[in-house]
Each structure stands twice: as structure tokens, then as C-alpha cells.
């Protein structure tokens, strides 16, 4: 297995006065290129810490993160920004669209800083929003907003698509549609997708499932036969 993303003993310690909180405690795992990875765990287990470190939004106290052969943990702040800019696509739980920009402009916002982006319009058509290009976020439903958010992440043509509870603020059907979109992107484009969720139910659709508990990887399983989201119900 090629180790496209490799975490090696990633530890994150927050100091609150006298108290030391180990948000991530020697987390190690590896992900291959093109995999659809689901990281699950209860609230406060350390999922977000892992995501932050993976996304270059935070630095580990110790340990090593290798992405596509590059040692991300050795990056300085500026290199980290470059890493987020070029290598990472981020899908937020609350979409985080710029309310003042239309769907198309929101995608363009990400593209203007990127080296070889995809065409914003095409990506939006791909996520099924071809007819809502000129709508403002407030004029879109939650699912539609999340699609814009995904389009924004995809259009950057990143190495890694990180999704933080992408369905957390959505209803059941919309949530499923979004997960389907993500799965399709992974399959069709060969994009490495990491979804963080507390929803155990979606575990079967993952190529690789990582359980995190109390800041540690409790166990990791590789699913040889992931099923389509359409077949999953919860």
C-alpha cells in the first residue's frame, strides 16, 4: 500500500495553566491515494484535532505528517498556508460561504489563489448547481450551500479533500445526497477524501474506517467492498 498520507505518532498537547490536555495522543495511520476515508469517534475524541493537523490549520506538538512525500510537520506558517492553498480542499460543517458572493463567485474566490484550478462553472455544473450560479448563499438551501462549498473545495484540484461533518447541518436526504456527491468525486476523479463524522452509520461506505477515541486510534479497518451510500440508511 502506498502511503499517500501518513501520520506517525502525532501528538497534540494543549496546556491550560497547570493542566495538560492530550487532544491527540500518538495517533498513527496511513491513507492511500484515491481512498474514501471516514474518521469516526464521539464528541471530544480528538477528530477535529486530527483534522486541523491534516488540514494545516494547526501544528502537532510531536510526531510526523507526510503528505504526498512531503513532511508537513516541518513546514513553517507560510509553507503551511501554501499547503492549504495548493494541496487541501476543505468542506465545512456550516459551509462557510462568503454571503456577499454568488455561488460562482464563492468558487472563484478559492480559485484565484490557486495554481492550476478547474473551471468554476464546470465544477458547479458537476455538483448539480448549473442553474444556480448567480444565486447568493442566502438564496440557496442548506444542501445547495454545501454543494457550493464542495465545489469550492474541488475546483482547487487539491490532493486531499477534508470534510468536517459535511452533513452535520443538513437533513437526512440532503445529507445523503452530499455524501453521494463526495463518494462520486472520489470514485470518478480519484480524489482522496477524508470525512470526519460522529455518525457511525456511514462507516460502510468508506474504503478505510478509522475510529478515534480519547485521542487515540482505537482501531482502523480497511473495507474491501464499500457499499454505495444509497444502500445505507440510518
Amino acid at each position, binding site marked *: 500500500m502506498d502511503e499517500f498520507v501518513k501520520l506517525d505518532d502525532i501528538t497534540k498537547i494543549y496546556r491550560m495553566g497547570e493542566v495538560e490536555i492530550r487532544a491527540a495522543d500518538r495517533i498513527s495511520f496511513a491513507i492511500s491515494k484515491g481512498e474514501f476515508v471516514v474518521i469516526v469517534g464521539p464528541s471530544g475524541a480528538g477528530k477535529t484535532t486530527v483534522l*486541523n493537523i491534516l488540514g494545516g490549520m494547526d501544528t502537532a506538538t510531536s510526531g510526523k505528517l507526510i503528505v504526498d512525500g512531503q513532511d508537513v510537520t516541518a513546514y513553517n506558517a507560510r509553507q503551511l498556508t501554501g499547503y492549504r492553498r495548493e494541496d487541501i480542499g476543505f468542506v465545512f*460543517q456550516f459551509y462557510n460561504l462568503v454571503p*456577499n458572493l454568488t455561488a460562482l463567485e464563492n468558487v472563484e474566490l478559492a480559485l484565484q489563489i490557486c495554481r492550476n484550478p478547474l473551471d468554476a462553472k464546470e465544477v458547479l455544473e458537476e455538483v448539480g448547481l448549473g442553474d444556480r450560479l448567480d444565486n447568493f448563499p442566502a438564496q440557496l438551501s442548506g444542501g445547495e450551500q454545501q454543494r457550493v462549498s464542495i465545489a469550492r473545495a474541488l475546483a482547487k484540484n487539491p490532493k486531499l479533500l477534508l470534510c468536517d461533518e459535511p452533513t452535520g447541518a443538513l437533513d437526512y436526504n440532503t445529507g445523503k445526497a452530499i455524501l453521494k456527491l463526495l463518494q462520486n468525486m472520489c470514485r470518478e476523479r480519484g480524489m482522496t477524501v477524508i470525512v470526519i463524522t460522529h455518525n457511525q452509520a456511514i462507516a460502510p461506505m468508506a474504503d478505510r474506517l478509522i475510529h478515534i477515541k480519547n485521542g487515540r486510534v482505537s482501531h482502523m479497518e480497511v473495507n474491501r467492498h464499500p457499499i454505495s451510500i444509497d444502500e445505507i440508511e440510518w
Partner: protein
Amino acid sequence: MKKKALRKDFFMEIRRSLGRFLSIFFIVAIGCAFFSGIRASEPDMRYSGDAYFDEKNMMDIQVISTLGLTDDDIAAIKEVDGISDAEGGYSVDALCTEGENQIVVHVMSLLPSMNQVQLEEGRLPETENECAMDVDFLNESSLEIGDTITFSSGTGDEITDTLTTDTFTITGAVSSPAYIAFQRGSTTIGNGTVSAFVCVPEESFTLDVYTEIYAQAEGAKNLTAFTDEYDNRVSEVIDNVEAISADREKARYDEIMADAETEIEDGRQQLADAQTELEEGKAEAEQELADARQKLEDAQAELDSGKSELESSITELQNFRQQLNDSQAQVDSGQEELNANIDSLNAQIDQLNAVKEQYNALASSGQTDDVTMATLRAMYEEIQKGETAIADAQAQIESAKAELESAQAQINSGWEQITSGEQQIADAQAEITSGEQEIADGWEEYYDGEAEAQAEIADGEQQIADAQADLADAEARLADMEEPVWYVYDRSNLPEYTGYGDNADRMRAIGEVFPVIFFLVAALISLTTMTRMVEEQRTQIGTLKALGYERHSIAGKYLGYALLATVAGSVIGFLIGEKIFPYIIITAYGIMYQHMHTIQLPYNFQYGLGAAAASLVCTLAATFMACSSELKAQAAELMRPPAPKHGQRVLLERIPFVWKRLNFSWKASVRNLVRYKKRLFMTVFGIGGCMALMLVGFGIKDSIFAIVERQYDEIQLYDGNVILNDSASQEERDQVFADLQEYDNVTDSAEGLLTQISVGTGDGWYDVYLSVPEDVEQFSNFTVLKDRITDERYELTDEGAVLTEKMAKELGVKPGDTITIRDEDKGDLNVQISAVCENYMGHYLYMTPALYESVYGGEPEYNSVLYKVPDRTSAEAEKVGEDILKLEGALSVSYTTDLVDQVNDMLSALDAVIVVLIISAGMLAFVVLYNLNNINITERQRELATLKVLGFYNGEVSAYVYRENIVLTLIGALFGMVLGKILHQFIIVTVEIDSVMFGRNINAVSFLYGFLLTILFSCLVNGAMYFKLKRINMVESLKSVE
């Protein structure tokens, strides 16, 4: 608030959001401080001025009479209703020399209790030849304490008519409450301007009447100077004083008349005595002269007889000499005869001897022959006979010889007699010569004496004639003498006294505008902050609502929060502001009023209360409005995240031509600007306010400076104006103009009429100067009539008069309108206005002589001469003025350059005020921008965090935010320029004093400075914001929407 939990939450809230609490506290404090402080400056200036005058026991009323004032007058004034005290004083204007310059000083006596001077250095004068000098002048002049100065009167009279001595020793430097600033007033001597004042003891004056009386009004001391209450009180008392003035004038007149008549009578008596004395003296002198002549003539006669006697003696002597010569001749011939006799005797002797030898030879021959014997006998006989004859002859010769010798002796004694006679004659002649000399001397003496006596007599006669003329003159004067006139003045007659009040008024005008802006901004800031706070706590409000708390309890927290911050801010702001701002401003004015050290800064509660009430209303209303909209919503709704704000298309998008060209960062910025309207408005207002304040600060300076530039360089092209003496003769007055024409250093001069008249349009009368040039053609060389805005030149025509702008505005007249001139003799006269011209100092109405004639029905009497000097320096103009004032026909000279000094005085004080304004504006800009940016960043933290997650570099994130700030700053600055221009117009019109029009302009460079400073402040704030942006945590992007 009974609810304990809520109360705890309230205090916790303050502790947790201390930054926000403090930001409201400080902005309110600054707003209140500025508002109440600047406003309080005006009353504080009046209080300080009043305290100074009270401390110096300043007079309220000054009475001056054309014929002096007596102790009776003082007593009479003291009796006047409303007068608490009165004192008499002396003063005189005198010339003195300082270095190369001749200056005019105002010499005044130290008063017993009023107008106390402040000793700045040295000691006060004690004896009558000591003086204390104006400290301002002493510091700048070459004179020092210990030097002596000599005064001269500058008029035909002697200074010692007024002062006991003309030389004084300077013992100290003093300041006087009568001269609070730099001006020392004007005078009719020297160059027309008083340069300094000098205080001397009362005893230094020899005058027998006071030159002025100072009085104080009852109750005026308790009133504040420069207020209407004070002015009204004093003018009431002045009316009372004026009521007795007619009686006192009459009394003084009668007294003078009586005195003068006595004096004239005395004079006449003296004159008569003198005449008698002269007559007597004349007679005596004539007698003496006659005696002297007689004596001289006698002496001459005596001398003459002596002379003739001498002549006869000389003749006698001459005869005697002749006789002697004759005798000598006789003696000489006798001698010759004798000698001949002796010779013949000798021959006889020789013959005899020969005979004898023959005899002897015969005898010896022995021959005894008779013959021989006979012969011998005969021979012997013969010898005997011969010898007898010889003896006889010898005897004869001897006697002749004796005779001759006695004759010779007689002759010799005769010569001796002659010699002594000659000596006597010589002596007599010497005597005569000296006698003649004596007589000549005697005559000389006589004639001298005569001349002297005549001169003395002529002199005496002249004196008597003079005395007679004087007496006649005095009688004529007495006959002509008019009753004295009393002039009763209040303090405004003192130089620059009113200027202080004007400055206070100016401060009020500034205080009415500037702090309001400041205050408005402060109110807006606290409004935004409170709104933001309520919005942030949406969920908490929802929770409390869900828990069942009443609306007022929930709102109470925010209202309480705002109340506490505002009240605390107001109180602190008031306490500090009302001390600091008036202090700075009064100290700044101290540059102009150097000796008014008294600073009174009482709290003016009305301003503080006003400011506090206004800020309370603003913040509480804002909080209430913010709360009420949230409180109206359902609890459930509040606990859900708010619906995202609608993005909206802006107008610009409808112009694809522009919109397409914008990259979307700009698109986003433009949309953001429109979306956050409140922020747009606030920032534009804040920046605009800052820009406007600075612009007004610079603009006030520009406008005041414009008075000099425009008035001096563009309008009033002359350098001096000589006012002719009404009471001088026409020739003397013509002489002034002629002299000015001749003068080397005068390039041009023109005659004209300049007189103060009263004009109006029906309601209210205003004083303006009527100016009628003698030569209309030449007039434009001295005064330029033009429109301020269009620069169009106007010519003086016979159709109508030209009025200056400020007065035209005051009267509300336009070209073509008619105004009324109120003339004391001729009643109301109408004149049409043909044009309104630009002018900054004073008010003028210009007419051609022909128009004047048609309006007044008589030719103008020219009473002034304008002149120009080549380099337009004050020194040149003053030199000319000094020379011209020596002429009888010139009364006074005013210089255009005086204006420059006045303006510079104004500017020096304003400089500090302007610095205060600019610093305040900077503070305002900083606080506003910081606060707004802060709110902006907090509000958009999620958006900015998202951008960071998307991989925007710090610089790019900052640029995203700054783009909006830059646009807002630019819009704000532009808005500020417009606002500043409007404010400036308003302030300039309000701060103007009646007789002055300030420029209406703001220089381009002021716009530039204001703009650059605004940008600088904006950059500083944005720089500070950078760190805040950098610190935004990306994790914020993961949080749910609040």
C-alpha cells in the same frame, strides 16, 4: 434587579468584556471631555479675565474732560447713584528716544487703589524722577532698569509744563491691566502710535487738574466681565454719570472763566507796572548819558588847551635853539680871530726871535761899535718893544680865550636846557595822546551805553507789546472758550479689552461646532458597540427568554451595562475635560495676553450635565432599540443561528462595463461596503469628521491669514493714511499733501474724504467709513474694488456708491438697492448701491465726488491723504508718517501694516487651539477607526478564518479587509472635505468680529495636509489591525454560526 443570578451575570459580563466596556467608557469620556471642556473654555476665559481685573481692582468707568477734572468732580462722581468709588489720575503722551528711534510713550500716574500695575521686575517708582516701564517694551528695547529716559512733549509746549522733570530713572518693569495685549493705543504726536506706557508717581505731574477720573460701579465687581450683565450694569451707571456731566462741565467752565479773568486782570496790572518802570528807566538812562557826554567834552577842552601850550613851548624851544646856534657861530668866529691873532702873535714871536738871534749874534760878534752898539741898542729896544707887544698880545689872547670859553660854557648849558625842554615836550605829548585815547574810550563807552540802553528799552517795549498781545490773545481765547466736554467711557475704550471678549466669543463659536461633531461620533460609536453586543448575545437572550425571564429583566442587563459605562465615562470626561481643555486654551491665549496669569476653571455643570444627558440618551436609546428587536423574536428563533444576511446586487453591477473589469476581490469589497451600511456610514462619518476638523483647523488659519494677503496685497494698495487736522488752516493742510508729493520715499499719494457715517436700510444703523477720492481716475491705484468670487473689477461711477461685502451682507443689500445714510445735520439721505466689493478690514462706502455732491448737496471736504512707499515695509511707511506728523496740518497717521501685526497676534493664539483641534481630530480618527475595525473583524471572524483555511496568506486576508477600509477612508476623506468646507464657512462667519471679514478660503495645501494626516491615522489603525488579523484562529471557521 432582584434576580441574583442575573446580577452576577451582569458583573461577570463587564469583567469578561472589559475591553468593550472600556471602549464605551473611553469614547464617552473623550466625547464628554471635549464637549464640556471646549464649551467651558468660553465662560472660563471670561471668569479668568474677570478674576484678573478684579485682582487689579480695575476701574469700570473712565471720565475724561477736555478741560481737565477737579477734586470737586471726583466728589460729584462719588455721589452719583451706582458709583462705589472714584479716583483721579494724570496722564500725558510724550516722546522719548530709544536707540535710534523716537517713540511715543503714554506716561500715567500710579493710582491710589485702582488699575493696580503688576510689578514684574525691579521696584515701583518712589520719587518724582523715577518711573516704571512697560515690561513688554522693556524686554524688547535696548533700555534696562537703572537707565534714564528723557521725555519731550512732541508739541509746542514744554514737557515740564506737565511733569516736574523731563528725565526719569527706570526703577522697574510693570504690566498694567489697562494694556492686556500688545496694542498701546494711538496718539496725536510722533508717529501716531503709542509704543509703551510709563508709570510715574502722582507727584511727578505738575498739573493742577486731573486728566481723567476712574470710577467703579457698585456691584460690577461681582459680575463677570465680558458678559451682558456686566455691560448692562456699567452702562446704567454710565448713564447716571452722564446725567451729571452737564452741571459739572458748566461748573468747570465757570471756574476756569473766573480764574482766567483774575489772571487777565493781574496781567493787565503787571503790564501797567512794567510800562511805568520802563518809562522811568528810560529817563534815568538819558540823564546818565547826558552826564557822561558833558564829562567827555570837558576833558576834550582841557586836552586841547594843553596841546596849544605845548605848541608854544615847542616854538620857544626852537627860538632858543636858534639863539644858541648864533652864539656858537659868534664863538666860533671869535675863536678863528683868536687863532689868527695867535698866528700873528707867533709870527711876531718868530720875528722877535729872529731879531733876538741877530742881536745875540751881533752881541756875540763883539763888535762894540756904536753902530753896532746903536744897532745893538736899537735892536735891544726893538726887542724890548717886541717883547712887550707880544706879552700884550698874549694877554689879549688869553682874555679872548677866557671870553670864548665862558661863551662856550653858556652855549653848552643852553643845549642842556633844550634837551630837558624836549624831554618835557615829549612827556607832554605822551600825556596828550593818552588823554586822547581816554576820551576816545570814553566815547565808545558812551555809545555802547547808549546802544545798550536803547536795546533794553526796545526789549522792554517788545515785552510789553508781547504781554499786551498775550493778554489780548488770552482775552480772545477766553471769549472763544467753549464749555468743556466730558467723555465717559467703559473699559472697552482700553486697547484690546474688547478683543479678549471677542476671543471668548470666537471660542464659543468653535465650542458650538467642534465638540458636537466629536460628541456625535462618540454617540455613534457607543451605539454600534452596544448593538453588536446585543447581537452577539442573541443565544443568551433566547435562553433567558426560554427560561421565562421578563423582557425588562433581560434588557436591564444591557441597559445597565450601557448606563454604567456612559455615566462613568461622562463623569470622568466632565471632571477631566473641564479642567484640561480650558486650561490649554487659556494658556494658549496667554501668548497674546501675557500678563493675565489668573486662570479660573470652575466646573460649569450645565455643559457636563448636557453632555452626560445627551450621551445617556444616545447609548440607552441605541441599546434599547437593539434589545427590543431581539426581544420581540421568539425564544426558539433566537436560539437558532440567524438567517444568513442576504447578499445583494449593487447598483454598480448594472453597469457591466465597470463591473466586468473588477476582479472579484473588488466585487466582494464593493458588495461588503454596501451590505454593512451602518459601518459604511459610521466610518465615513468618523473619518469625515476627522478630516473636517483638521480642515477647519487649517482653514481658520488660512482665512485669517487671507485678511493680510488679500487686504494688503490685493485690495488696500496704500501703506499709510494721514488724517488732516480739522483745526489747522487750509494752507497747512495743503502743505501735507504737497509734502507727501515731494517726499522721496513716497511713490504715490492721493487726497480724499474719509469720515465715519451711519447707514441702514430702516432697521438698525451701522457705522461705516465713507470714502470719497478726490481723483477718481487714480483711485484704483490705492484701492481695488472687485468681486470676491468672480474677480470682476468695479469702477467708481457717478451712478451709485460701492459698498463693502460684509456690510452689504449685514444690511442685506444687493447692487441696485438703495441704502439710507443718517446724517446729523442733513437728516436721512438715500444712495443707490452700484456694486458690492471684496473687503476684509472695516466697512467702507465709496463714492465719487460728483455722487457725494448730489447726495449731500455740497462738495466734499477732503480730510485725508493716502500714500504708498516703494517697498511697502512698515519702517518706511512709519518714517514718512513721523515726518508728516510734524506738520501742523496732519492729525494722525494709520498704517496698513498695523493690520499685519493685529492678524499675527490673532494667529499666534489660534495656533495652539488649532494644534488641540488636530490632535483631537487624530484621536477621534484613531478611536473611531480602531473601534469600527475591531467590530468589523469580530463580526466577520468566521469569514476571515475561512479565507485563511482556504489558503489565503496573512497579507491577502489583510488586503481583503483593507481594501474596504481604504475605500471607506477615501470616501470619508472626500466627505470630510465637503463637511469641512461647510463647517469652515459656518465657523468663519461665526468667529468673525463685527469689523472684520475673514477670508472664505481654505488653501489647497490645507486640503492636502488634512488628507495626508487622515490617511496617516488610517494607516496607523490598519497597521495595528494587522496583528489582530494575524491572530484570527482558523478554528473559528469550524464553529457554528452565532
